[in-house]
Each structure stands twice: as C-alpha cells, then as structure tokens.
C-alpha cells in the first residue's frame, strides 16, 4: 500500500517536461549514443528541434486536459527528495509524492533540418562580399536547426566553406572554376577521374596550380560533388555535368533557345576531354518550355524565385511562364513541398489538371 501525496506548490527552481521517445530515440538515449540537444532558432518560421548526432526532430507540443502528476516513490528516491512526516510515530509507510503536474508532452517528429546561409558573405575567388554576419562554421552549426551529420551534408551542398576563420559560401562561378581546375588537372595527370581519388593529393595538385584555392574551398567542392570517405573521394559524374548545365542555363539570362543550342553550350562549358553523358532530364526543375507550339525551346527558371509556402501561388507562378507542362518536368518544381506521405498527383489534382496527350501526360491550369 502506498500513501499518495501531492505538493501544494511546485518547485520554482526547476521545471519538468515529458518528451516522447520513439524506438530509435530510446535506443540512442539508453545506449548513451552521443550528443542530444535542443535547438531553438531565432527565426520564427522554424520550430524548436531535438538533434541527435545524425537526426533532426521537430518538437511538437501535444497538450492534454488530464491531470498528469510526476511523482517520486520515496522507497526508491534516487531523486534525493527529503521527506519528513508530521506523524509522531507509527510504522513507516511507502509514500508517493507528486512534485510536478504536466499539461503537455513533446512529440519529436523526424524533419530534414535547415541552414540559413542568406546573410553569409559570398567568396567569389578574390574577396568576400560585405556582410553583417561574421560567424564561424561551429557557430552556424549551433544556430541551425539541424543535426551535426545532416549539417555538413547540407552545408557543403550549399557551397558552405570557411575563409579566414569565418563562415562563407562560394559563388557559383568560383565553384565552376574549382571544378574545371580539378577535372583539368586529373585529365592532365592521366588519372582516371571515375576511380577513387586521394583528397590530399588533389589538394596538393590544385594548390600548386592556383594558390588562391585553399584546402577548405577544395574540400567544399569535393564534398559537394563526391562521396568522401576519410581521405578518399569518389566524384559523382552525374552531379558534376548537372552543375555545369545549370550554370550554362543561368548564363542564358532567361533567353529562349532551342534544346540543341543549349545542349551545345552546355557541352562546350565542360572541361576539355571530360567525357560524360549530358541530358536535359538532369536539369529538370530549372527550366520550362514557354511556347506550346515550339516545344523544343526552353527557358531558364530560378526555382527560388517562385512563391514559397503558398502552393496555390506557386502553381499560378508556374502557369504564368508556361500554360502546359510535361508532367515529369513539372513535378520537380513541387516535390519539395509535398506533405509527408502524399504523391505529386494529390497536389496536381488539387491545384491543376492532368491530361493525357498521346503517350505524354500534361499538366495544365484548371
């Protein structure tokens, strides 16, 4: 038998919260797997997150109306509660003392995390652009609602680097310059660029060619365009031509040109003797076909210039540049915004119309 007590006032020195521990989190916590932290970003549009070493969870507050009392069994009492009874004598009974009442618990939901690089200075190969933000990479990691492992994948993908102990991003043209130098050197050295490569050797060759290319810059490019395992790098020969293609597309300054003309300028932007297949499919999500009559003409669209958040507005933006879209070319513009577990069809049927034209499926306005 236990006597149940509740404190009339709860401690003001500390507060208690419940957090749901799904099997993966429970295992992580019980095994002492590594760092566990809560990050509260300054930007209001982002939620507080729980981060393990390699996963990010959005913290959702689940309120309830039940009375939930967190209690201490004084017969175990590893909390070290000092309990004294007013009873003068009598046998010592087991006591459970409620010391906190909780009206909600946190539910961690897996999320992809986020890094805000908008205010960071950009290094263009010569100098840093002016910026009010002067932080180190470690500070960016602490400020970003994302786990450590995911951070570095995302960071390099955003061309994040460090210059004179300051976090910065590399400009697109400078990334292209580093990539061109890298591939040219590999070809000149007679190295098979499809094989595993030694990062240290690459850095040495590149710095001998251009002293402005610091090892941090080169590492950013190697991580962005390759799989790095300690000192060994395997370059991704789908990502690299896609990058050159995107830069060629940006360089058109939204001019409308035929597929063939564009493919020619794309091919010529690749370093000499770098022979990899190129296909317009690699650039889906970055171009449209503005004319329904001349389907072989394309035009660059910056996906970041489209409305974010309001999907109806995003669909409107897309139909303002082209009234009819090939289904496969339309989906990459919206798949980032798909609710979890939903297929692109569900959004297309909600905001647009799908038609079959021969073998092709076309997306058009309602």
């Amino acid at each position, binding site marked *: 038998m236990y006597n149940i007590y509740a404190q009339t006032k709860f401690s003001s020195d500390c507060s208690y919260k419940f957090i749901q521990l799904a099997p993966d989190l429970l295992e992580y916590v019980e095994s002492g797997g590594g760092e566990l932290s809560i990050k509260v970003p300054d930007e209001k549009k982002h939620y507080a997150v729980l981060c393990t070493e390699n996963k990010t969870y959005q913290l959702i507050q689940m309120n309830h109306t039940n009375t939930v009392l967190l*209690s201490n069994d004084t017969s175990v009492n*590893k909390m070290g509660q000092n309990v004294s009874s007013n009873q003068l004598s009598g046998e010592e009974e087991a006591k459970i003392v409620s010391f906190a009442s909780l009206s909600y618990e946190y539910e961690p939901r897996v999320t992809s995390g986020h890094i805000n690089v908008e205010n960071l200075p950009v290094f263009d190969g010569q100098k840093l652009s002016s910026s009010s933000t002067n932080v180190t990479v470690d500070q960016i990691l602490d400020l970003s609602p994302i786990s450590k492992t995911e951070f570095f994948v995302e960071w390099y993908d955003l061309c994040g680097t460090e210059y004179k102990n300051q976090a910065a991003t590399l400009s697109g043209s400078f990334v292209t310059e580093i990539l061109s130098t890298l591939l040219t050197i590999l070809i000149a050295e007679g190295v098979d660029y499809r094989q595993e490569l030694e990062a240290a050797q690459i850095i040495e060759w590149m710095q001998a060619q251009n002293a402005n290319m610091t090892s941090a810059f080169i590492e950013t490019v190697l991580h962005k365009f390759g799989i790095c395992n300690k000192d060994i790098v395997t370059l991704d020969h789908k990502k690299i031509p896609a990058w050159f293609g995107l830069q060629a597309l940006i360089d058109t300054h939204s001019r409308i040109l035929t597929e063939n003309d564009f493919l020619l300028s794309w091919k010529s932007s690749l370093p000499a003797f770098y022979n990899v297949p190129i296909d317009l499919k690699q650039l889906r999500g970055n171009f449209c076909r503005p004319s329904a009559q001349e389907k072989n003409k394309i035009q660059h669209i910056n996906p970041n210039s489209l409305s974010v958040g309001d999907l109806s507005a995003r669909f409107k933006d897309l139909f303002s540049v082209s009234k009819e879209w090939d289904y496969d070319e339309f989906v990459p513009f919206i798949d980032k915004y798909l609710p979890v577990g939903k297929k692109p069809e569900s959004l297309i049927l909600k905001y647009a119309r799908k038609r079959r034209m021969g073998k092709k499926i076309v997306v058009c306005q309602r």
Partner: protein
Amino acid sequence: MPKVNIDCSEIKKNQSNSSNVISTPFGLAIIEIQGELNIPEIASSEENPDNLKVDDLYTAVKFGKLIVDPVDDSKVTLFVGTSQRMLGKIVKIDPPLGVLKINANDKNEMKMIDVIKKKIIFKDRPLPIM
C-alpha cells in the same frame, strides 16, 4: 538560447530491472487522472499529521491510498478520503516518456533524469466506498 545540450548520463546508470511495479528504478511514477484533480493551494494546517514536508520547503497533502491488486498487479485502487475509490490500471506508455529537468535559473542546464515506460491511469469516475 540557440542550443542546449541535454545531459543523459543518468539514463544509462538507471537501466537495472526493478521488481517495483509502480515506479522506475530511479523512483519516478506517473499518475494520470482523467479530469481535474483539485489539490489545495494551501495546506489545511502545517501540523496536520497527514501532511508531509518536502525538502523543508514545500508541503505535500495526502490525497489517497493506493493499493495494488495482489492477484493482478496491473490493477490498482485509489481510495480518496473515506468515501470514494477509483479503479485504475498500470499501463505501458507507448512511446515511453523521457523526463527533462530544466534549471529555472540557468536554461542552459537541461538533464534527462529518467525514462518512464509505465503509468498509473484512472479513466473511470470515482465509485462510493460501500
């Protein structure tokens, strides 16, 4: 407060199997009552023999006696005062709950002190004691 590390060192220490059906090896238990439990904000009398003093700072009032069914230890009865009893159960919490302790004076000090996998829940209305 951009980032706060959670100290989970206590969790690994307290993973022993305990025969205690009410609380965790650390000694924590959750009592859940559907509805509101009115606990007096001020104890009736500091000298009341039913009251406890916690850490010499707080008064805890007794609101019931809990008895675990000797045959089925997942069933419990809570006797409130002399006229009411509540039938409850000890149920598994899915998913388990981590208990975070946050220092009110230093929000950067956060500890996960325990993981609770069972709770005592009272879902039904109180019954009279016959």
